[in-house]
């Protein structure tokens, strides 16, 4: 087990988690619970392949992927913000819609079930000849810093935090709560869409049905474990990435453990971390609450 390939693999595994978790951060910081990270990622993965296949450019693929993610986010937003539906139920619906929608479109557009045709891959950035870094990881890093700047230094960020803490007070100060909530949700859609693009375009270059495999929920858990703080989110995502990479390498050695064991590890790890986290975790106070209008 050499160090450099391990770090490479860890970053590859951590990037979609980090991007999706950061997406979830924007949504939940304005008070909209978003369990549809999984669905938005899946939609993004599909959109990315769609874009890359038809235009030949993986970058356009990622952009289309983010658009798909944004579309689903918009549905979640309309259902939970404007139609005042329960946030979690709405998220469940979006996840199911993503599952059905991607399968449906896969058949209608490509005429196949299960796996899409290949599309051009998104390349890596090579550092020092031996080490490949996904450009999307750099994006995640950039997002951590820009979200910190946004939330603590700009008026928009202050207002978004206020909406997430107490939308009634925010409303009484003339802040348009619904608009800011939509903004947070849409950003989460874009980021999750990009995370999906990472999955389908970086390693695999194909779309496989249900390829997100629960990562969106692990990303959500990352968000919770990280107490909704951007820097910590990246750290927790990296931790999962390392754990994932280690499990992969372990699998290659000749341990008498079935492959299913290794596949279950991230989920077991998530439960353990969620169950063991320290009290004092504080979600945005108005998470999930509806605003009174008139």
């Amino acid at each position: 087990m050499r160090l450099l390939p391990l770090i490479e693999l860890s970053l590859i595994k951590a990037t979609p988690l980090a991007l999706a978790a950061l997406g979830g951060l924007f949504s939940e910081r304005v008070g909209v619970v978003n369990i549809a990270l999984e669905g938005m990622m899946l939609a993004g993965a599909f959109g990315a392949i769609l874009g890359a296949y038809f235009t030949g450019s993986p970058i356009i693929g990622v952009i289309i992927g983010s658009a798909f993610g944004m579309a689903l986010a918009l549905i979640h937003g309309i259902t939970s913000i404007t139609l005042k539906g329960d946030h979690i139920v709405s998220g469940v619906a979006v996840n199911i819609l993503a599952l059905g929608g991607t399968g449906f479109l896969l058949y209608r557009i490509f005429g196949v079930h299960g796996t899409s045709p290949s599309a051009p891959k998104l390349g890596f950035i090579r550092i020092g000849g031996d080490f490949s870094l996904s450009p999307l990881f750099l994006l995640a890093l950039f997002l951590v810093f820009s979200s910190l700047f946004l939330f603590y230094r700009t008026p928009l960020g202050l207002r978004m935090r206020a909406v997430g803490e107490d939308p009634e007070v925010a409303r009484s100060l003339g802040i348009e709560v619904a608009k800011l909530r939509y903004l947070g949700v849409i950003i989460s859609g874009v980021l999750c869409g990009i995370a999906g693009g990472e999955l389908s375009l970086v390693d695999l270059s194909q779309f496989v049905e249900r390829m997100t495999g629960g990562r969106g929920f692990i990303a959500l858990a990352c968000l919770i474990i990280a107490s909704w703080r951007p820097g910590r989110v990246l750290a927790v995502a990296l931790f999962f990435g390392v754990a994932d990479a280690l499990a992969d390498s372990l699998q290659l050695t000749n341990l008498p453990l079935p492959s299913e064991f290794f596949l279950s590890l991230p989920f077991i790890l998530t439960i353990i971390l969620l169950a063991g986290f320290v009290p004092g975790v504080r979600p945005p106070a108005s998470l999930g609450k509806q605003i009174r209008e008139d």
Partner: protein
Amino acid sequence: MIPLLKRARHLLFVLLIALFLSGFIVFLSGGSPRLFFLLLYTGSMGDKEVFLSTLIKATPLILTGLSVAIALQGGLFNIGAEGQLYLGGLASAIVGGLAPLPPPIHLPLVLLSSFAAGALLGFLAGWLRARRGAHEVITTIMLNYIVIYLTGYLVRGPLSAGEAIPKTREIASSASLPIIAEAGSSQLSFGFIIAIVIVFLAYLYLFKTPFGYEVRAMGRNRRAAQRAGIDVGRRMISLMALAGGLSGLAGGIEVAGLHHTFYSQFSPGYGYDGIAVALLGGNHPLFVPFSALFFGALRTADRTLQLEGGIPRDIVLIVQALVIIVVCARNWRFFAKLIRRRKGNEIASSN
């Protein structure tokens, strides 16, 4: 509590909107909505064989629907019905595969073991939530993946019947549910009756016992329930265990009444379907069977839809998603305002 008639009307209303939207989606993707609705009907109720198939598919949906519904009544989201179903199925296959026992003992044992397996999973999720604050949405989904991998491994390896497809041994005939109706390849088992009976038991539990009262109180205002002296933590755990047991039982009936064995991927998603079933039924036990019937019909018709209509089976999921969205939307006044504003503009511009 909304009067039952009003709730029935609401259910119908939601169904109509969801069907309309699905037809629209079929239209958008180049298909024929007319064909879609026609095939939906013939594929699920056109003859006795498909009708029985609809009932067969509705059976586990009734139970997973109840599972999700009673949990939601208590304010808990049981997304883990799928995993509970799997574990219940496996447990009943194991117990059913034991040396034959007299049917009055073997069959109840099989069903009980499936209930217990599902209840164990539910208990775990409930405990994690009540005592550790780990939100059950995430933990139940995690458990789903873990259980599906675990059972997948077990039927591939230690519990395998040694055949090409990963599955367990056939269960003994003393462990099988009797067939109550047959047509063509569809065999409806007694499990359907069991599911209906449980519907009534669930109704009694929820609305006629103090435990059900506490569950409903906790689901609507947890703080007030606590102040009233209700032990919310304990209620949560027992509620999740009960919900898990119901889904586990669904798996048990699938094994004992239909497949007579447990195999990898043996559920096309009945556990997740249960979410849409519960929500369409307004989380009310008496309406869950009707909702289950609808989704059972969808599932039965999907083969016809695919073969004769070129509509991929994913449409089932799309319909589910639309149903859930329509059900959870609360702010119908929004549409009224939209119409009023449109009319207002008309009046203004005509001046």
